C-alpha cells in the first residue's frame, strides 16, 4: 500500500438546478470531514468517489490508484473500487442475519486485510448481535453493523454518509466513541460527511467546507475552524478545535492542565492520563480580549496573543482571529469594543478564556 499518496479528486456533476464542482486533495490517513448545509453536495461528492453517480466527470485517485479519469476514458465501476460505504440509513440486507451481512462483504473482499473479522466485531461491539435479524436491531446497532460490514470489504477508503443523522441524541452519543476508536485504531483513511459541527470537531483531522456545490475552505481542522472570514464562522457556535495533551492534574482544586502548541489551559478536572491526546473546543463567545494583562481576575486562563485578522458582521459583532504562539483562536466581541480597543491585525492583546470543552 502506498501510504503517502494522498486522495486526489477533481470532478464535476450537473443536475438541473444544481452544480457540483470540487477539487479535493485529502490526506492519506485520518478523517477528512465534508461539512456543509444540506443541499451543498456533500453526499453527492461521496457518491462520486464510490462511482454511484453516472454523471460525475473528472479524475479520482486514491492511494496511487486511479478510480476514474474521464479525460482518459477510465471509469472503474462501483463494485470494483476498493471503498467501503456507510450509508445514512445503514442499508443492511433484510434477508440476511447480521452475520450473513458481514459474510456477504467478506466473501467478496480482496486485497490486503487491514483488519480481521474478530477485530471488527470487537471494535464495534457487535458480538451479541451476529445471529440477529436486521429488523430486530436498534438504529445505533444497525449503524454499527453497517460500519462493520463496510470495513470487512477491506476498503482502502471508508466513506461515511452522515452515519449519525438518523439517530437520536442518546444513540449519537453511544456511537461516536466507536467512530473515534476506528479513527485511532485503523489506518484506513475516512471521508466523513456531516452537517453537525459537533461531530466534525470530535472526529475530523481535515476539514472541507462545502456550500452550493463548491469548496469554500479546506485544511487541517484546527486551521479551518479558526478562520474568521467564512460564512460558517459567523455562526453563533463558531469555535476553534485544539489538538491538546493532558499535561497535569491539580487535586486540590480539581483542575486539569492541558497543553497545546503555544500555550496551556486549566480546565475543570478531566479524567485523562498524562500525555494522553485530547481535543478541546474553545468557542469564540468564550474568549474575551483586553489590552492590558488583568491584575486580578476570576478567569483562570489568560494568555498573550496577537490579532491576526478581524471580521465584522452586519449584526454589530466582530470576530477576531488570534495567534497564540502558533495556535489560532477566535474571539467574538461587539464591534463597538473592537473599535474602542483598536483591534487591528498585529495588535498585541490578552485573551481571557472563560471556558473550553473537552470533546468526547
Amino acid at each position, binding site marked *: 500500500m502506498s501510504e503517502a499518496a494522498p486522495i486526489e479528486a477533481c470532478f464535476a456533476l450537473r443536475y438541473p438546478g444544481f452544480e457540483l464542482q470540487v477539487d479535493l486533495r485529502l490526506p492519506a490517513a485520518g478523517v477528512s470531514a465534508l461539512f456543509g448545509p444540506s443541499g451543498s453536495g456533500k453526499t453527492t461528492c461521496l457518491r462520486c468517489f464510490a462511482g454511484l453517480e453516472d454523471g460525475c466527470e473528472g479524475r479520482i485517485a486514491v492511494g496511487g490508484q486511479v478510480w476514474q479519469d474521464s479525460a482518459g476514458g477510465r471509469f472503474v465501476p462501483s*463494485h470494483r473500487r476498493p471503498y467501503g460505504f456507510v*450509508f445514512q440509513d445503514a442499508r443492511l440486507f433484510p434477508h440476511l442475519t447480521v452475520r450473513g451481512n458481514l459474510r456477504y462483504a467478506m466473501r467478496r473482499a480482496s486485497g490486503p486485510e487491514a483488519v480481521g473479522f474478530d477485530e471488527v466485531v470487537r471494535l464495534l461491539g457487535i458480538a451479541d448481535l451476529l445471529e440477529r435479524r436486521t429488523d430486530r436491531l436498534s438504529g445505533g446497532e444497525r449503524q454499527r453493523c453497517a460500519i462493520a460490514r463496510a470495513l470487512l470489504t477491506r476498503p482502502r477508503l471508508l466513506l461515511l454518509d452522515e452515519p449519525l443523522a438518523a439517530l437520536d441524541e442518546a444513540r449519537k452519543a453511544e456511537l461516536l466513541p466507536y467512530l473515534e476508536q476506528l479513527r485511532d485504531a485503523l489506518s484506513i483513511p475516512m471521508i466523513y460527511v456531516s452537517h453537525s459541527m459537533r461531530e466534525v470537531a470530535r472526529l475530523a483531522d481535515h476539514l472541507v467546507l462545502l456550500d452550493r456545490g463548491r469548496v469554500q475552505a479546506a485544511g487541517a481542522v484546527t486551521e479551518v475552524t479558526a478562520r474568521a472570514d467564512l460564512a460558517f464562522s459567523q455562526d453563533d457556535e463558531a469555535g476553534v478545535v485544539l489538538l491538546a495533551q493532558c499535561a497535569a492534574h491539580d487535586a486540590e482544586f480539581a483542575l486539569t492542565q492541558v497543553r497545546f502548541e503555544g500555550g496551556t489551559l486549566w480546565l475543570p478536572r478531566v479524567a485523562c492520563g498524562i500525555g494522553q491526546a485530547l481535543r478541546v473546543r474553545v468557542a469564540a463567545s468564550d474568549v474575551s480580549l483586553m489590552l492590558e494583562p488583568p491584575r486580578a481576575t476570576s478567569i483562570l486562563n489568560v494568555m498573550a496573543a496577537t490579532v491576526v485578522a478581524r471580521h465584522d458582521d452586519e449584526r454589530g459583532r466582530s470576530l477576531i482571529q488570534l495567534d497564540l504562539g502558533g495556535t489560532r483562536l477566535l474571539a467574538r466581541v461587539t464591534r463597538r469594543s473592537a473599535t474602542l480597543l483598536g483591534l487591528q491585525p498585529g495588535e498585541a492583546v490578552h485573551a481571557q478564556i472563560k471556558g473550553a470543552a473537552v470533546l468526547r
Partner: protein
Amino acid sequence: MDADDLTALRLTIELAFVTTALLLLIGTPIAWWLARTRSRWQPVLAAVVAMPLVLPPTVLGFYLLLLLGPNGAIGRATAALGLGTLAFSFGGLVLASIIYSLPFVVQPLQAAFASVGEATLEAAASLRAGPWDRIATVAIPLAAPGFLAAAVLGFAHVVGEFGIVLMIGGDIPGATRVLSVAIYDRVEAMDYAGAGRLAAGLLVFSFAVVLAMHWLGPVGTALPGRAARR
C-alpha cells in the same frame, strides 16, 4: 371422475406446469427491465405485456392461428425444422398460454423488483457485488414473495384459459382438451352432472388461489387479477 376427466385433468396440470416454468424464465428478465429501465420505450413494452389483460382471447387466438398455421411465419419455420405446425398441438397451446398469461407473471415480478429499490442494490455494489451477483444474491431473494405470487397466478390463469385454447388447440382428447374445454363439451352434450363436477373443482381451486394471493400480502394484492378477462 371418468377416464376422460382424468385425461383432461392431467393435461391441464401439465400445460399449467410447463407454461408457468417457461413464463418464470421469460418473465424475469422482462420484469427486471421494466422495473429498472429509464428508457422511453418502457411504457411501450409494458403495454405490450399487459395487452392480453384487455384483448379478447379470440383476437389473440386468431392472430396466433395465422402465425402458427402452415402459411404463417412461425408455421413455416416449424415446418422447415420438421416439427410440423404448432396449431392444434400441445406445443401450440403452450406458446399461446405463455403469451396470454404473460402479464400475470410479469406484473407481480415487476412490482417485487421495483420494491427492492436502488438503495439496497447500491449497498450490494459497495460490497463488491457485480451486476449479476446483485441480481442473484439480493434482488431475487428479496423478490421471493413476488416469484411465489407470479407462479401461483400464472398457474391458475393457465388452468382457467378457455377461449384461446379453443382457438389454438381445439378439442383433441389427450392433446388439447383441457378441463375448461371439457366442461364446455359436457354442457354441449347436456351432461350437466359431469360439467358440474369439473366446474365445482375449478371453483374450489380458484378460491384457494385468490385466498393464497391475499396471504402473500401486498405483493399478492397489487395484481392485475381484477382486470382479467377470459
